[in-house]
């Protein structure tokens, strides 16, 4: 069996009303062979966590363009913990100033892909992360 079929939730949190970026990323991940649960606009942190659990995703990819990542991400990470779902890794993409990257990583965000990152990098990172995680969780 091809153990690909990585399931990733692509969500945008925050109130800015467009999501071309998220949809382009979703399409690119699909072309890389992943199953992308695309959640559209108007997501709250609660919704994202609920969806991630129901969809049993391997990883969550958050797109943030509003600049509010330092406010929104702690809420999401908290919500994951509250729901016993903080074993699901989270990555962030979008408009993120370099200086904020360590701050996000300190919240346990696994990796940050600021605007201008290559999709292939993200794909490689996701594959590696998911394979490691599957090895540890499915063995148990």
């Amino acid at each position, binding site marked *: 069996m*091809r153990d690909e079929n990585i399931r990733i939730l692509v969500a945008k949190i925050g109130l800015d009303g467009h999501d071309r970026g998220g949809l382009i990323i979703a399409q690119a991940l699909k072309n890389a062979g992943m*199953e992308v*649960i*695309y959640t*559209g606009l108007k997501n709250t942190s609660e919704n994202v966590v609920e969806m991630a659990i*129901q969809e*049993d995703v391997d990883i969550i990819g958050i797109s943030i363009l509003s600049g509010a990542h330092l406010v929104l991400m702690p809420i999401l990470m908290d919500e994951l913990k509250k729901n*016993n779902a903080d074993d699901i890794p989270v990555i962030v993409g979008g408009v993120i100033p370099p200086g904020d990257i360590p701050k996000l990583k300190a919240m346990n965000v696994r990796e940050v892909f600021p605007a201008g990152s290559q999709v292939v990098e993200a794909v490689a990172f996701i594959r590696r992360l998911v394979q490691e995680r599957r090895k540890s969780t499915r063995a148990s």
Partner: protein
Amino acid sequence: MNLFEKIKAGDICSIARLISKVERRDPEVIKAIKEIYPHCGNAHLIGITGPPGVGKSCLVSELAGKFREKNRTVGILAVDPSSPFSGGALLGDRARMIELAGDKDVFIRSLASRGASGGLSAAVSDAADILDMSGKDLVLIETVGVGQGEVDIARLAHTVLLVLMPGYGDALQAMKAGIMEIADILIVNKADLSGADEAVAELSTVQGFQGMREGQDKWVAPIIKSSTLDGEGIEDIAGAVLKHFEYVKEQGFLRKKNRDRRTNQFLDIFTQQIRDEFMRLVKVDAGIQRWVDKIGDLELDPYSASEQVIELLRNAREQERDSRKRTRK
């Protein structure tokens, strides 16, 4: 609590994980399904099919909301095609179902069709069983109607909704004959756009030509206009769905539907397992290997080969029957 009890209690995490295992065709899941199976059969399975973009997901969301008002618990399976090239899939249905978020009595799961080209994978049926056992009163299954998908959903679901929109009259002609026959409820969605009445008229004309449905089934599919923008028709559709299930039960069709579904499911599993087992045998048994090679070398034609195997099965059955007769005496 073991996994089985957790699912029975509606534990979201356990339901989600078991569905993933079912999707991977994980061998240990077969054990779980065997345990679950006797506890299925309480849910009303509803298929929602139709061409891309007619508003199926929006409609599923609205309908689920309506059923929640009636205090029914709801499971939703949204199936989208996998790319035959990359194997990936963009599962965007639940983006249209945001209004259902936060309701613990609604479970939504997106499924990629994976290997099942056009049709529904075996995982969809198993996932429906899992939601059934978890106590969902209604399970709504959204599939894109392209060819095989419609036939499969008709086998799986008790009630099938065919969703169209204004301007889809031609599409209906182009669709496989018999599509009208599988629909228990016909919906012209996007009735807020112009041309909805024409579409309804067209549908009822086509329906008129169809004549009676197979067997004793006298159900005439209602044609309902709807709009997910202003809520038109949603109450009517929900009512028709429940009415159809009552009809199916009263007429004694429920049992037949369930039996047909399970027979098909068994045949799918059986043929798959026969294939797998045979391929395994070929690898380890030199005699069988030689026998198969005869087919390749044109010494034995594949029809006769298949008949030989079926003959073996038949003989085994006869022997079993004889030995049972003898023990009874």
